[in-house]
């Protein structure tokens, strides 16, 4: 862990996953996740892993279903249109309680859209995305270091809760090169066995991996079980980073790339004497409501997103007291500058307490 490498976010994520013991990658080409996909295509065969280019994203997520059912750590990466196709498989993975990692390198939508960085898929990711009543754990890195750390940790969370985990990032985080300390590698052979996996009924009763139970009563029981699992994840796994909250009267809330840019705007505002803080959710689901619990001095929130107002809904649900939450952001591939956010922040700072 002491060695520092200069890595792109894409490579950091790939290396984090491999160091977590992931040896299986199935995927379909789509921009802007190409570098991650191609890194895996080169690297996995060198270390005895499996990389397979599938005929569609539907097939990729179904292959993941098979490999996850066999008890192996497995992942894919895609972007908006491909992630939409994977929603069928994600619903089945959630139902069968299979662990895996799906990386969404978000691009601008809706439709085919364009490939510039975006945060357009927040609601799709955090509300389940596919049919039925389920959740995926959603992680939002904001640096190359976090791309590696959260990819590594995603597999721990996926296995702990037997649940799909999604990483939401974008092409900017993927391309940006930064110093990274990679986590110590895990030998996949040393990972604890998964007694539920289908591996052939040798020396044990048979195992089943099912995305539908036999009876209506069992279907209700599964939903009760899932609800309790999700409640436990909400209690134990919410993560966030916060800054300057002790005296903050205005708090910027942002994740991923927009949080990274917001940090600069907040720092600039602090040097000008503005009492501004920052909450950066690292888990988008579970949304870190706890971060909003305790601060009496807050008079307003400013939610900065590269979309038309998606995480805003979670901030409105989480905030305490009758304080406004403003939104600053556009979809379509718009990237805010530090100046844009600073300007918006000053305006919100002046409006706070007057509403």
């Amino acid at each position, binding site marked *: 862990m002491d060695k520092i490498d200069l890595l792109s976010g894409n490579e950091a994520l790939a290396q984090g996953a491999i160091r977590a013991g992931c040896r299986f990658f199935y995927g379909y080409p789509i921009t802007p996740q190409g570098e991650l996909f191609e890194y895996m295509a080169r690297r996995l065969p060198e270390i005895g892993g499996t990389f397979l280019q599938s005929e569609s994203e*539907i097939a990729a997520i179904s292959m993941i279903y098979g490999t996850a059912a066999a008890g192996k750590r497995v992942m894919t990466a895609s972007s908006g249109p491909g992630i939409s196709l994977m929603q069928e498989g994600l619903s089945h993975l959630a139902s069968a309680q299979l662990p895996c990692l799906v990386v969404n390198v978000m691009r601008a939508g809706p439709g085919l859209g364009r490939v510039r960085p975006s945060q357009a898929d927040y609601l799709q990711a955090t509300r389940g995305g596919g049919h039925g009543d389920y959740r995926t754990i959603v992680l939002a890195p904001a640096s190359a270091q976090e791309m590696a750390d959260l990819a590594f940790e995603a597999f721990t969370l996926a296995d702990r809760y037997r649940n799909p985990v999604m990483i939401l990032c974008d092409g900017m985080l993927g391309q940006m090169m930064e110093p990274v300390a990679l986590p110590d590698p895990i030998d996949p052979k040393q990972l604890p066995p998964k007694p539920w996996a289908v591996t052939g009924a040798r020396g044990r009763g048979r195992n089943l991996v*099912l*995305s539908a139970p036999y009876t209506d009563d069992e279907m209700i029981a599964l939903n009760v079980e899932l609800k309790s699992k999700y409640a436990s994840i909400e209690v134990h796994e919410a993560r966030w980073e916060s800054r300057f909250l002790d005296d903050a009267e205005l708090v910027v809330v942002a994740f991923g790339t927009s949080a990274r840019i917001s940090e600069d705007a907040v720092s600039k505002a602090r040097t000008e004497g503005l009492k501004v803080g920052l909450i950066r959710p690292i888990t988008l689901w579970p949304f870190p409501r706890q971060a909003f619990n305790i601060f009496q001095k807050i008079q307003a929130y400013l939610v900065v997103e590269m979309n038309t107002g998606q995480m805003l809904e979670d901030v409105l649900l989480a905030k305490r007291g009758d304080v406004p939450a403003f939104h600053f952001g556009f979809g379509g591939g718009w990237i805010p500058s530090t100046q844009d956010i600073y300007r918006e922040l000053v305006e919100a700072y002046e409006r706070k307490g007057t509403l």
Partner: protein
Amino acid sequence: MTKLFARPSSMSDAEMPYCPGCTHGIAHRLVGEAIDELGILEKVIGIVSAGCSVRSWCLYRFDMVLSAHGRSPAVATGLKRALPDNLVFAYQGDGDSAAIGLAELMHAALRCEGITVFTINNAVYGATGGQAAPTTLIGQKTTSYPSGRDPSYAGYPINMAEVLASVSKNSYVARVALNNVRNILKAKNAVIRAFKTQEGRLGFSFVEMLSACPIGWRMTPLDSLKWIDETMIKQYPLGEFKVPKGLEP
């Protein structure tokens, strides 16, 4: 007293979840008998998905997976790549394999993926009430084309075995029928040869089974068996369409 006939030991005591006269049960039994005879219960993994056979995982005593409609060849790929020493089969209907899952099946065949696919061709969607399938014959009446399949409007039936045999370089591809004892014995042989293809790492294996759906066809069970003989086999001839190098005759 000597027991002359029993369920295969790879099968459970669960009841067949099928309508009277349906031949899914024969297909399941043939798979069970083949697994017994090959002694592969401890390394076989089966996959079923949406359709009449959605609950057929309860019929067996080995590891099984239920996955999304049409996707089982891709799920089987993920299982086989992770567990190359196991035997992985998918049990599909014709809507599953020839309509919604055609891409997954076709590409598994193109990759010569070392998996086995059994597909039930009964020319209708049985579970949802007898709608047209890609395999519905010209003129055949279904609930979605009540006046019969008109090819100028609804296109032509697909001959899965011939199509897959033409694209899959290393494979075992056969079509069998489950309508009389002679054909059933041949069907069992095809099931065994499909598993042997996989066990010998000789490539992809596929067995299409012509199967009766009296309820979906609005026929008696006996008329259904006759209809397979007199009508279905004309469109879907029986036989082995491809045999991989190395599979003994």
